[in-house]
Structure formats: C-alpha cells, structure tokens
C-alpha cells in the first residue's frame, strides 16, 4: 500500500473518522491500530521485527534512565557525602548509563546492518580476498518497511535519554507508535521522541482549518508525485538505461532531470506525510526548505532531507568532533600542519564520516558511498578554503549581496548537486564516472535542446509542456515560500467559492495530468527503498 493509492486514502480517512469519534485520551490507540494495519499490509510477518525492536528500545530506555539516576539512591542513603563524592557518584552513574546505551545501540544497529548490509559487506570481503575472482551468492533477506528510518529514531530516543534530554516512555505501545506512525514510517521525516511522542499521546480535538490544510498538503504532494516525478521518470530512465547514447548536455540533463524527479518525489511524499499527520492535528518536522535555492553545497544540505542532516549532526558529527580521540588527534596535528588546520581537523574528519554514512545510509552500494563523499568534498572544501574564496571575490570585485552573484551561486550549487546525482542513479560506479566524463564531451553544444532530441526520451510534446509548466509552478511556489509567503493560509482566507474552485482545479489537474491510467500503478517513492 503506497501513499499514492486508494487503499491508503481509505485507511487515512477511516483513521481520521475513528480518531475523532474516540474519547480524547484514547485517540492514540486509533493511530496505533492504523499504523499497525499499514505496516502489516506492507511488511507481513516482518512486522514482528518492528515489534521486537520496539520492545528492545522500550527496555533499553528504561534501563538507561535507571542507571543514569542510580546515584540519587546513594545520595538519599548517605546525605553527608562531600561535593567531590557526589560528583564522582554522578559520573559513575553516567558512565554506567553510557555502557547500557552502547549495548542497546549495537544490538539495534546490528539488526539493520545484518538485514540491509550483510550481503554488501560479505560480497566486498569475498571480492577483496579473492582478488575479484570469487563469486558471492547473496542471502535472501527481506527488509522490514522503514527500517532505515525507525532505527535512527530508536537510536535518537535512547541517546537523548542517556544525555538526560528526554524521559523514557512508560507505555510500550506508545513507544511502538512513535516508531511506526504510519504517515512517517515509509520515508520520514525522522522525528525526535520529545517532539513527536507527546503529540501522538495527547488526543487532539477536531480543528476544521487544520484538517483542511492537511488535505491541501496531501493534494499538493499528489501533484508533485503524479504530475512531475512520475512523468520525468521516463526521460531519466531513458538516459540512465542507455548512457552510452548520451553525451554533453543530454548526459547532464539526465542528472539534472533526476534531481528534479527526486525532489518532486521525495518532497511530494513528505507533503503527503505532513498533510496526513496534520489531519490528526499532529505537526511533523519539515524535511525541505526550497533546496534548489541553496547558494552552497553546505546550504543545500541544510535545506534537503533536513531531519537526516540534523540526526547526523547531533548523533555523529558532534560526538565525534568533541570526542577525546579526535581532541588528541587535533593536538598532534597542530604541531604537524599548524594550529589553524590542526584545529579544524576533528571537524573535517567527522564531516567526512558523516557524508560517508549519509551515502551508505541510502543503500549498500558503492555508488551511494561516492554520492556521499562527493558532497562531503565540497562541504569540507567550503570549510578549508574560505580565505581563497574571499581573495577570489576581491580579485573579481564581486558584490556578495548582488542578485547576479546569488543566481550564479545557485546555478553552481545545482550543477554540483546534479553531478553528484550521477552516483546515486547510475547502475554502478564505472557507469557514473563514464557519464560524468561524457558530460564534458561537446558540453557547449546546446542544439539537442531544440533539435528534437528530447522527444526521443519517451515523452511526447504535450507531456513535455505539462512537465515544464508543472516544474515552473513548483519553482514559483518554492520562490513564494522562500519569501515567507504562507500559501495555504492565504488560500484559507479566500471566499468559500474561490477556495473550492482551487480545490476542484487541483483535483482535476491530478486526475487529468497525473501519470496513471487503467492498470497503471504509480511508481514507488524513491526514498521507500532506502
């Protein structure tokens, strides 16, 4: 059951109806039931993996919390302890809590690593030890729905408890709901327990405005997914399935179109997720803020898949950068490479590890790892070379605040990100490099844009027009959002007739221009596979 299906809409509306019929304090049970139905329909018996993980996380949370505050019992029993003794008791408790945390994180991560990555690691090892001659027959492993997402949620829950930033959930079923809340389980956003947990637990009274805005957002998500993503998927497939036939601007278009496809697909899926949650009065963390308006790769990653970036920052980047090991490395490096670079070294190393993980999180393939590293190189470059950039700007007398400079930076960022897409979409790394190479072949020849070559990519003329108009509308709305305009609120303020006219037109647009038909099944969301 994907988001873009009638059964999903029936499940959502039935859940909405029951949610508001139930007494306030029991409403979360409707969300849990709907989430388990959605999960079981998609994952069958693998639902047991989710439930077992939830049980582990529940036990882990309570044990970590108990260890963290175990020193309090000692303080009560022996109130005459000195300040130093109290501190040492507290430190001991903290250390014990960290040990329990490590154990649970290893087990939970172990489930993900085994199910998703064991074939990759075993295959790589066999290939390494046999000089590429050995053949590894992969195990048949099925992945529970959303495992890459709920594993990160589980880890953040446990780490936050160990850091004293969250209390453990008392009710195991509520914790299960946090891990599998159906609007967000398929492809995120990746919420924090302290943001989502209380919202799920408390019953929300019916708010007609919020409900309506939720439905609007779902409709907008459908438009992005069905009119843009599923349409542009055809030329993207044409180029990536026969890359040897395309070079120069056509090869670049393959990556650029794929960038548009992923954005429409993923952010469309997010709109459906956020909208579905909003019909229950629940606010999920947004995952995008107009990423293609970014002026640097760093800026892009602040606006793209925000909750994954935030997770990596809090649970990988900061702990690594501030770890004792990285600290002493930095001390040694200061003597070797000078104080300026030495100080930055922990951040640089941690950042590379983050982007390696971001890459491999998408899937157990070298293409994804290179995709991560490609982005990491530009982020670290931005950190290492600010002086060089500054000199360049002064040399060319560039006014940093000018619109033209901003547009140039946006295009440059789009280009860098698009080239990275070769790695995430090509079937293997050799193809990705070959495509990047062929992109520079006759790169200045723009004639394929007007000589009909585009029509050979599987879309007819009218489809290209619909696609172009839809992408322009998306760009226009993103531009409004960038300027701080709240579009849905503006629509809500319009007279009733005008509002309904907009809804009817939007629904008709999806029905007429959406890519589907008898027997057509909408393409799965790209991020479902991660």
């Amino acid at each position, binding site marked *: 059951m994907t988001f873009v299906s009638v059964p999903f809409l029936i499940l959502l509306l039935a859940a909405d109806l029951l949610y508001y019929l139930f007494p306030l304090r029991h409403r979360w049970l409707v969300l849990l039931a709907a989430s388990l139905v959605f999960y079981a329909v998609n994952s069958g018996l693998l639902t047991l993996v989710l439930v077992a993980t939830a049980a582990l996380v529940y036990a882990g949370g309570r044990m970590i919390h108990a260890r963290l505050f175990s020193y309090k019992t000692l303080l009560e029993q022996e109130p005459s302890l000195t300040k130093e003794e109290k501190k040492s008791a507290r430190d001991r408790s903290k250390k014990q809590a960290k040990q329990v945390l490590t154990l649970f994180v290893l087990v939970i991560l172990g489930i993900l690593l085994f199910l998703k990555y064991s074939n990759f690691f075993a295959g790589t090892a066999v290939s390494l030890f046999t000089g590429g001659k050995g053949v590894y027959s992969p195990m048949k492993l099925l992945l529970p729905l959303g495992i890459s997402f709920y594993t990160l949620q589980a880890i953040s829950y446990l780490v936050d408890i160990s*850091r004293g*930033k969250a209390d453990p959930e008392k009710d195991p079923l509520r914790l299960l709901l946090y891990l599998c809340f159906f609007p967000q389980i398929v492809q995120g956003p990746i919420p924090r327990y302290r943001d989502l947990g209380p919202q799920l637990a408390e019953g929300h009274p019916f708010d007609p405005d919020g409900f309506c805005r939720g439905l609007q957002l779902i409709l907008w998500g459908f438009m992005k997914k069905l009119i843009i993503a599923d349409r542009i998927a055809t030329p993207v497939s044409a180029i990536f399935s026969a890359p040897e036939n395309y070079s120069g601007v056509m090869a670049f278009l393959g990556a650029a179109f794929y960038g548009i496809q992923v954005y429409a697909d993923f952010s469309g899926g997010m709109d459906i997720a956020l909208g579905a949650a909003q019909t229950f009065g629940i606010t999920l963390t947004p995952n995008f803020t107009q990423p293609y308006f970014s002026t640097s790769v760093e800026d892009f990653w*602040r606006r793209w898949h925000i909750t994954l970036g935030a997770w990596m920052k*809090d649970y990988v980047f900061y*702990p690594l950068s501030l770890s004792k090991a990285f600290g002493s490395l930095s001390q040694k490096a200061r003597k070797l490479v000078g104080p300026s670079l030495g100080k*930055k070294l922990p951040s640089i190393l941690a950042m590379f590890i983050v982007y390696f993980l971001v890459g491999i999180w998408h899937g157990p393939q070298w293409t994804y790892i290179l995709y991560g590293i490609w982005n990491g190189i530009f982020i670290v470059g931005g950190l290492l070379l600010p002086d060089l950039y500054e000199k360049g700007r002064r040399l060319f007398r560039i006014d940093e605040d000018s619109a033209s400079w901003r547009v140039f930076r946006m295009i440059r960022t789009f280009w860098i990100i698009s080239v990275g897409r070769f790695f995430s979409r090509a079937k293997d790394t050799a193809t990705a490099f070959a495509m990047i190479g062929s992109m520079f072949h006759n790169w200045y020849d723009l004639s394929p844009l007007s000589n009909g070559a585009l029509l050979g990519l599987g879309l007819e003329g009218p489809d290209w027009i619909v696609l172009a108009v839809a992408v322009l509308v998306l760009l226009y709305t993103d531009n409004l959002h960038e300027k701080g305009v709240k579009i849905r609120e503006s629509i809500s303020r319009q007279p009733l007739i005008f509002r309904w006219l907009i809804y009817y037109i939007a629904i008709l647009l999806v029905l007429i221009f959406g890519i589907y038909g008898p027997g057509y099944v909408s393409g799965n969301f790209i991020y479902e596979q991660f």
Partner: protein
Amino acid sequence: MLERLLEILSEVRPDLDFENETRLIDDDLLDSFDIISIVSECNDVFDVEISVDDLEPENFNSAEAIAALIERLQED
C-alpha cells in the same frame, strides 16, 4: 570572563555581533563547524569540558548563555 569569551567568539565569526545577538542557534547564525570551534577553544581557555550533552540551543543562543554554561561547569 565574558570579555575573553567575546574575543574567542569574534575570532571564530568576526561578522557577528555577539554582544547583542540572542538567537545565535535559533536563527541559524552559527553552524556546526562554528560550534565545534567555539567549544574546543572554550575548553582550552577556561579549562572546562563542554561535552556533547551540553550542546543545547539554550546554552549557545547568546554570549551570556555560553558564559553561564562555562561558569556552571567550572563550579561542578
């Protein structure tokens, strides 16, 4: 101590007005690299150990908040 802290902050980000800014994190004025630079510098200069557990927005939104965090850790 506040004066020395302001010096450190200005070295990391000369473009920001640390004396008056109170939403350094909430408004995304400091990025994660800046935070790491500030923390490691403060750890060295004030002989404290700001750990990852202390990296909360409310501890880093203003120079005063950072100073308060350092004082708290020095007392501990």
